[in-house]
């Protein structure tokens, strides 16, 4: 019936395991600091060099 389909019993027979146990990550504060520095270094490498012009140039027409 037209209820929300995913509440009906159903099972996928192929494909990768679709029910991973959520594993809450709980890294130590120091690891997080190092990690965010790594992220920023990586983003620095690809971020548009002229941020102001890039932002100004991102102009969209309206949509739905």
């Amino acid at each position, binding site marked *: 019936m037209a209820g929300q389909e*995913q*509440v009906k019993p159903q099972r996928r027979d192929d494909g990768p395991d*679709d029910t991973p146990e959520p594993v809450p990550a709980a890294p130590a504060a120091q690891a997080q600091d190092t990690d965010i520095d790594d992220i920023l270094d990586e983003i620095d490498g690809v971020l548009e060099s002229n941020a102001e012009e890039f932002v100004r140039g991102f*102009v969209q027409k309206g*949509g739905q």
Partner: protein
Amino acid sequence: MGIETEYGISVPGQPNANPMVLSGDVVTTYAASRGIRPAQASWDYADEAPLRDARGFDMGRGVAHPSQLTDVEDPTMANVVLTNGARLYVDHAHPEYSSPEVTNPRDGVVWDKAGELVMREAVARLATMPPGVNLYKNNTDGKGQSYGTHENYLMSRRTPFSRIIAQLTPFFVVRQVMCGSGRVGIGVDSRTIGYQLAQRSDFFETEVGLETTLKRPIINTRDEPHAVADLYRRLHVILGDANHCDVANLLKLGATSLVLGMIEDDWLTSATTDLTVRQPVRALQTVSHDPTLQATIELADGRTVRGVELLRTYHELAARWVDDRLGGDVDDDTAEVLRWWNTVLTALEGDPMDARRWVDWVAKLSVLEGYRERDSLGWGDPRLKAVDIQWSDVRADRGLANRLAATGRVEVLVPEAEAARAMDEAPEDTRAWFRGACLRKFPDAVMAASWDSVVVELPGERALQRIPILEPLRGTKDAVGDLVEGAPDIRSLLASLAAADGRGD
């Protein structure tokens, strides 16, 4: 269910480039890469009725805003159906990918990600003609314009629409806490500096309505079922953000689907006190504007609650409902949604930053806060706005969300290889399979297709044949796979479908 996404589009260094022409280029370039001629598999508009209102009346065409007239075919507008069952076309000034119909939220994430890869493929091909075109899976330019990521849910026509409005609105006011994609700037044109949870929330002005491009409503009443109209309605949800985090995307579809399931079952009416939110539009914005998640909203009965508290209430109700209705028979998809819902909510109830692996706005905020601290940047700094935009660049190397996912900092539920297969392969358990299979097997015979039809040309006959596919759960691989694969040509397929129909299959 399914997700339709309008992508932001721009040409590096040319802010005034014509977005309609560019969007057409995106569609035709991708179609060509898959061997599809736009005229070959175009859209069949016969059953479209964008002005039909779920409340039971039609809007006159004369009073409709031109952007609401989505059923008039314009030959300059590229519009194709893909072998995965999706529609790829130009919607107003954006390329849009509308995913094929799926039966569960995880497949929703798979075919939504497939759409990102479709756009990425188009960008890569257009890049060979400098300056190329860039595409962004976001929902605002930060300057006053917004474009949508809409979800669609098949519902029973018997469910009173007034109940949907009453019981879904409170959930929609707070859903952004789990599913928002984050935005630098407050107000439609970012006139106030700062950060908020959702891309779309500032663009909503009313509680219920038909419009999608202006006076946007929290509950959209567009009533185009694209299915047997007496049996079904298609709930068209326009308030969500485009997600990059798989977990948030799964929850957007999955938690919403569970809430709709409870509404259809009329479980909430007796299972809970009235959850009606006072001034829901203002509450939507109050919640979005507070990344500390401490802001409260007022319920009609006088209580004040935080967004996470209302989400917890809905989660508890959903868990109880599933237990009551399914007990130990709960399917894997439902169990997965309830588990992630609890995990993400538990993180958000503590230190919201603990949800950075799962929730877009938190992942984005952690990067922005890193920049702010390292370089002492204020919220008005263009670099932070650049991060916000480039976050959603569809390219693997330039899109910041993609880079975070590639380095293991975001939980990936759907590996890229699986999404890549879904660029060409349709879901097997809905009519999308039949639509996609016709295009794959008989590309020269299919003249047009839509959500509820495939139009074919028979050799030597002047009239086209229209095959209705009005039942979303028919036309599956199980039901018609042998017929389609066994048919040597389109005429044989029509004959065997007619014979099967005669037998009542």
